[in-house]
């Protein structure tokens, strides 16, 4: 069922009904997923439904300011709505959590997960990521910082898993080659 977005913006109640019917399930699912992964346990149905309603309100608020920004030439509506729904959910969860969480605690939560022994010390040299392409940096972050599998990274990038392995290999080779030229580099002489 195609929904006429312009008709929604123009205030056509039938078009809005169709829009809601067509997309509520996706928005509900996206919000539910964000709430499940957000701070606090579980996914209270009332909270999810409330956030879904907030998503619809945001879309049409201020004469459909948000809905007007959607451009079908740049992305699919389902994808865009999923991201909007997630953002509204995260915003709501943060507002809800703020009274009991300090900014410092938030920073800890947001930091890339590392075990204490993995935490860099003041003496730990920074890795020269500037020698890598943006794609190579992204692959290493996903593989090593987030510890995602090759298949998961391939899905993220919408490429073949072999492309991920190849990109990782080239990135590490380039890093090691660069570091081997540096004096007293902790990566010197290591292979892999």
């Amino acid at each position, binding site marked *: 069922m195609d929904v006429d977005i312009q008709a929604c913006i123009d*205030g056509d*109640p039938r078009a*809005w*009904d169709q829009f*809601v019917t067509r997309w*509520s*399930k*996706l928005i*509900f*699912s*996206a919000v*539910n*997923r964000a709430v499940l992964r*957000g*701070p606090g346990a579980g996914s209270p149905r009332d909270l999810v439904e409330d956030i*879904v*309603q907030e998503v*619809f*309100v*945001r879309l*049409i608020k201020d004469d459909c300011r*948000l809905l007007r*920004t959607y451009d079908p030439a*740049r*992305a*699919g509506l389902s*994808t*865009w709505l*999923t*991201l909007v*729904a*997630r*953002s509204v959910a*995260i*915003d709501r969860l*943060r507002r809800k959590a703020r009274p009991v969480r300090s900014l410092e605690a938030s*920073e800890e939560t*947001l*930091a*890339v997960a*590392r075990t204490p022994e*993995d935490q*860099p010390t003041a003496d*730990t040299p*920074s890795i020269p990521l500037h020698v890598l*392409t*943006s794609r190579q940096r*992204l692959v*290493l*972050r996903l*593989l*090593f*910082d*987030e510890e995602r599998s*090759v298949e998961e990274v391939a899905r*993220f990038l919408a490429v073949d898993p072999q492309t991920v392995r190849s990109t*990782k290999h080239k990135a590490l080779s380039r890093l090691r080659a660069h570091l081997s030229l540096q004096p007293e580099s902790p*990566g010197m002489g*290591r292979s*892999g």
Partner: protein
Amino acid sequence: MSNLLPHSDDLDFWRLYDTSVPARPANVACPPLLELAGYVDDRLDGAARERLEAHLSDCLECRDAIVHARGALESVASSGDVASPLAVIRRARTLRARGTRGRHVLRRIGRWGVAAAFAALAAVGGLEAGAATSGPQTTVETALQDELSFGLLDETRFEDDPLITWPVELGVESGEEQ
């Protein structure tokens, strides 16, 4: 499953260095959600894709947004994921009906305004046309009060959050906590 994980030597090598970054890079605005959506849908050209991947390599929150979007879309496409939220649908439909009522009211005001002007002229001229305007004016006041109360409710529900970077392009921030 272990064969899918990063090679331990490579991981050890990576962890010899400080590779940590904040969840969101400082002083750098995250891209609009439409651009992230374009990345998920593979609609970015080469330069835009490279630019976005450079941001993604430093922004945990935007990476998480991509993962979330792909997961949610796949989930709905494959299994339907959750039951159809009828209560949500009913509420959202009502919302737009209330939100658009203002336009219809304004149109009515326009028509009644013209009628009222004629009536006023008629009254000045001694014609008996005043009674024709009294009913619609009362209705207008009621309708405007409805619109006003809806607007107030709207604003109190969505106060701006000073700790969240909203504006980008959409007025919606694109990050998420882990």
